[in-house]
């Protein structure tokens, strides 16, 4: 390691701990600000109106009369209107105490839902998430399960029988997107904010029968960010928690159902094993931990197309040399013995052509920088020389290792 790198490494190791005194002072300041914020909210609304009324002599008399009438009405109707009318803020408040939730996300035309289990910490931050994706939601991977825990994602590809462990910004971003899409708390806050900005028209139907759900219909206005979209939210009257969100889109003058999310088991603790894929995945599955090894090749000064072709070239060179350790490193970090098991029976002789690289045909992969590199290699099969054309070798940046590129998927 160069001296400059050593210095950089040493600097990153600097560590001081905040003292208990600082902790106390800052937390107290935050709590005081929270208290003040709550007091300010009530003080600016209720006493403000009261002061206006009571500062005027005629108003004082009128107010006294109103108080008498209101008192009489209150006695008359007490019992019928004891519960306040529902407002979105009640669901926002109710969501503060949520620690666990189980979600089913159905899409129009698909039988199986995506399923999510989410555990939040005491401050409401996402702690652990598990997502079960059926075939239709697998982005070409087939059915898969993703667990996010301790800043690491484990992806279990059921069909391929591969368990990959990664830690990555892109994965974190995707997880966030999914969490946002399906988190009822964020959904309600989102609606509340849009309502305040006048971007949605909200209609609330609160049945008198308490066993029936409150229905909140939010229609995005034409000038909003989601014109022609309507959400219908069902809210439990007792807990004020969201039980379902149906999404509709206006097509041909009709509101057509596109998806529904159902929310279950609020605050029912989720078994820790749900977030531990190692126990669930069969012993004979291939396990690839990309957090403990360097994958692929460094890009250096090469262009995306050049590094993609180079990774493919080095991969086949390694196979020709029967260096399965190197080949595995270039192929998502697959263990050498697994690669040998899969390709050991093929005798790779020489590379005939590599490239040119082109954007990956799957849009989601192309969006992450994935390329496809057509390759032709010569192999020996049954004693004969054969040209093997591989037109779906995918190469992309390594998720958790910036500037390194790897082969992925199948060959």
């Amino acid at each position, binding site marked *: 390691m160069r001296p*400059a790198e050593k210095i950089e490494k040493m600097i990153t190791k600097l560590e001081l701990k905040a003292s208990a005194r600082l902790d106390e002072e800052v937390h107290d300041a935050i709590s005081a600000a929270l208290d003040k914020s709550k007091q300010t909210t009530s003080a600016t609304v209720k006493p403000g109106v009261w002061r206006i009324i009571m500062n005027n002599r005629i108003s004082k008399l009128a107010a006294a009369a109103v108080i008498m009438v209101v008192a009489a009405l209150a006695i008359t109707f007490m019992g019928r209107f004891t519960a306040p009318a529902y407002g979105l803020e009640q669901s926002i408040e109710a969501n503060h105490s949520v620690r666990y939730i189980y979600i089913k996300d159905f899409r129009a035309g698909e039988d199986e839902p995506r399923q999510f289990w989410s555990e939040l910490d005491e401050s409401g931050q996402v702690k652990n998430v598990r997502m079960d994706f059926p075939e239709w939601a697998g982005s070409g991977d087939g059915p898969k399960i993703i667990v996010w825990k301790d800043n690491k994602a484990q992806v279990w590809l059921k069909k391929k029988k591969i368990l990959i462990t990664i830690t990555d910004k892109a994965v974190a971003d995707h997880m966030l997107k999914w969490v946002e899409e399906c988190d009822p708390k964020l959904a309600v806050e989102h609606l509340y904010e849009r309502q305040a900005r006048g971007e949605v028209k909200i209609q609330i139907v609160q049945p008198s029968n308490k066993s029936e759900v409150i229905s909140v219909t939010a229609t995005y206005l034409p000038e909003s960010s989601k014109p022609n979209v309507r959400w219908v939210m069902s809210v439990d009257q007792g807990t004020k928690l969201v039980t379902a969100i149906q999404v509709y889109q206006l097509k041909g003058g009709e509101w057509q159902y596109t998806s529904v999310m159902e929310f279950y088991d609020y605050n029912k603790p989720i078994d820790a094993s749900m977030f531990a894929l190692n126990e669930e995945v069969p012993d004979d599955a291939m396990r690839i931990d990309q957090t403990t090894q360097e994958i692929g090749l460094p890009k250096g000064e090469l262009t995306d197309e050049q590094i993609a072709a180079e990774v493919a070239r080095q991969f086949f060179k390694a196979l020709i040399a029967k260096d399965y350790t190197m080949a595995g490193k270039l192929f998502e970090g697959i263990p050498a013995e697994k690669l040998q098991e899969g390709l050991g029976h093929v005798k790779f002789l020489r590379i005939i052509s590599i490239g040119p690289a082109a954007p990956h045909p799957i849009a989601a992969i192309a969006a992450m920088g994935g390329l496809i590199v057509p390759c032709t290699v010569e192999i020996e099969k049954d004693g004969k020389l054969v040209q093997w054309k591989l037109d779906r070798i995918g190469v992309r940046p390594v998720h958790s290792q910036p500037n390194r590129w790897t082969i992925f998927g199948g060959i």
Partner: protein
Amino acid sequence: MLEDKLLIWKFNRGNREVLHRIYEKYKDGLVTLAGALLHDVDEAEDAVHDVFVGFIRSSGSFKLTGSLRGYLATCVANNARNRMRSQRRRQCVPLDEAGLPASSSEDAAYCAVFGEQLRQLNEGLGWLSYEQREVVLLRIYSGLKFKAIAESQGVSISTVQGRYRYGLEKLRSLLNSEVER
């Protein structure tokens, strides 16, 4: 990463409860940054305290964009810079000539918390000009981009890159015997 995005999302929507979490997550890193900049643990804690009090007061009145860590590190660096300037005014002696870092690094408590292994580095950092030290720490410890540091210091990117390069060079020559060992 995921958590930061949610924290920013909530902060921007006026949820002040997240401030507790933000403080817990970044307090040690910020105290370390301030400590390395100011070479005084108490001053460092005061700087972090001031930054958070300001952050609390301003929540709801502005929206965070970009990195939460980077934003807080920049605030701490700005606060530390102001503190250093007022120290300079009080002492009326240029920092390099005053030998402040070397004497501060002899502070037993300071050495104890950083550990003997990093004492040399700490002392070396102290011999950089304040501007160089700030750039080196913001770039390496806090992970800020040169552009962000330049905006924070009100100078050009090339000036910041120059400070970084010279700072690292100086640090390397100061620590050479230690590092090469």
